[in-house]
């Protein structure tokens, strides 16, 4: 008899975030007697393809971030097929989701930079603004600036799109303008690392002159000594699978499950 099967929709199964999420899904699926198949849509970003999974024949679907259109996600949900989203929401629908606690993470990061490192003039490298995580992190960042009576000046919010190359171009532009700032906070760790490299190449001392911090953690962030917020992405995958299996077993679930994150204070934030 064919095993029940969970389908994963992702844009690139080899991306750091996606790979760890998928490992978490596989772990719980295997323990619970499910097979897993992955539909990876945009491994070649220039030639993305549409979903090829025959989702109607699956037991349930896990969709990672904004890999596919909200219309398709809505269609899967409305067909009655169990579905869980990871780090994404579909506005106007009750499709359940699992996400890291961006509010807690950003609040702790800004508090650390302001209170412990005495930073006042922030550059913020934005994420891809059609992704839920990017919107939430920036919203909370702006909110936290107000908490510490710091202005949110638009010229210090630079484009990053979760893409180190785009972030690098924005930082180069800012350096050319020779404006003063004493902290760079990026919506992910990869953009923070590239910002740190560029600042150091420009002769700016990190963290003595400028603090750098990012969001999300990985061996590359540890190797760079980057202060960041660690979200357990494997756990995110595990919890999304539990949410999905809960639905398969008859639980009606609405809303978002959020998982706590941890502030990782390393060498790039406060001067010794």
């Amino acid at each position, binding site marked *: 008899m064919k095993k029940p099967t969970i389908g994963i929709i992702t844009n690139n199964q080899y991306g750091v975030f996606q790979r760890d999420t998928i490992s978490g899904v596989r772990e719980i699926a295997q323990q619970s007697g499910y097979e897993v198949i992955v539909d990876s849509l945009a491994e070649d970003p220039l030639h993305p393809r549409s979903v090829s999974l025959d989702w109607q024949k699956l037991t349930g679907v896990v969709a990672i971030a904004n890999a596919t259109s909200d219309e398709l996600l809505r269609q899967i949900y409305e067909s009655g097929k169990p579905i869980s989203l990871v780090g994404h929401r579909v506005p106007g629908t009750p499709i359940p989701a699992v996400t890291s606690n961006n509010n807690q993470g950003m609040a702790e990061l800004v508090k650390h930079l302001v209170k412990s490192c005495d930073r006042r003039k922030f550059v913020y490298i934005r994420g891809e603004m059609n992704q839920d995580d990017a919107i939430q992190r920036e919203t909370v960042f702006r909110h936290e600036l107000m908490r510490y009576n710091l202005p949110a000046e638009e010229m210090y919010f630079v484009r990053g799109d979760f893409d180190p190359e785009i972030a690098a171009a924005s930082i180069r532009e800012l350096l050319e303008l020779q404006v003063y700032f004493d902290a760079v906070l990026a919506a992910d760790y990869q953009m923070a690392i590239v910002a740190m490299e560029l600042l150091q190449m420009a002769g700016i001392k990190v963290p003595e002159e400028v603090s750098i911090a990012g969001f999300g953690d990985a061996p590359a962030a540890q190797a760079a000594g980057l202060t960041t917020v660690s979200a357990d992405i494997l756990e995110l995958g595990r919890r999304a699978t539990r949410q999905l299996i809960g639905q398969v077993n008859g639980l009606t*679930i*609405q809303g978002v499950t959020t998982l706590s994150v941890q502030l990782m204070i390393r060498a790039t934030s406060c001067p010794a």
Partner: protein
Amino acid sequence: MTASKATREQLRRHNRQLLLHAVYSGLADNRAALAQETGLAKPTVSDLIGELIAEGLLIEVGRGQSTDSGGKRPTLLQFVPDARQVIGISLDVDRVRGVLCNMAGKIIAQHHANLFDIEGHPVIDIVQHVINGLIAQLDAPLLCIGMGVPGIVENGSGVVQYAPQFGWHNLPLAQILTECYQAPVYIANKAEMAAMGQYAFGMPNDSRSPVVVLLNSTIEIGMVLGGAIYHNGGDISSLHISRQLGQHSETGRLETFLSWPYLKRRAELLRNEHPNTTLPATGLTFMHMQYAALHGDAAAITLVEEITDILAQVFSWIIAMLRPDHISLAGGIVDMGETVLNRIMAKAEALVQPELVQSVRFSLAESYELSALGAVAEALQNELGLVR
């Protein structure tokens, strides 16, 4: 016969709670010490400890030191906080928040769902969808569920007598949820749960009578006395007060001057009076008010002064009547920070004897999950006697 059986069961439950609490709080860590600490007979202790070990709530962790008089080294016992999990729910006007915790109050996962202008039974459906979201994440058997709701809750029965925001009158909510989840459900007013949350997880251990003033769409107060919720707190939104506004005074219910819908309308009026204000026309938050006030915005300063005037009255009533040792301000207003708290305290000193105000400690309860965590603490207290 039934009555005496019930009494024996109650006694057994009480004795189990005594023993668990003694191990949990570090008062005793072996059977002999437990007998001494609780006053229970040694065979009773052995019997109940065997039961608690069989259920996974306690484990044996090696041998301790023998006493000065020598003798056998005692077997040490340890509480297992991960042996069961507890769900805490907090119901706001626009959102249901839930936490899944172990028995030490460590949060495993949170879940929330928004409410969009619904009332009656559909609100219970959303509550269940949130509980289901946490049930799906259980790593251990579910021990019990706690829930804080706005309005008035009958002590013990979990009947919501009055929650006008949801059109609930005499709703047997605990019974409905118990039948659905086959687990004990404990329900109280959400400010009372917030006070329990502060008492159990949020404040110094020497606080014996903390009060929480919770400001959202309603104004509610909760208090813990002697380690248990004082069940006569709750919604005070309909209390009448009078206040001075410029040259004239006006009278109205507390919610008329302090609830979030009122504050948004008041900000709109002040925006008309002060066209240069930086208070946003949409998406206003307490944080915006405080930030603008700190930057000399006249509309924001007026708003902050009005809010602190009224809260000072509320604080002075509480201080004069209840004499708590600690008052925490909770809800979205916490984003206004210590400056606002200090302003409230200074104004309260003009309303009651300053010495009384100075005898109370004040704090901001910063966790958005405070009521849900309090619901976990209340459920643990009722089920296993485990708080502090």
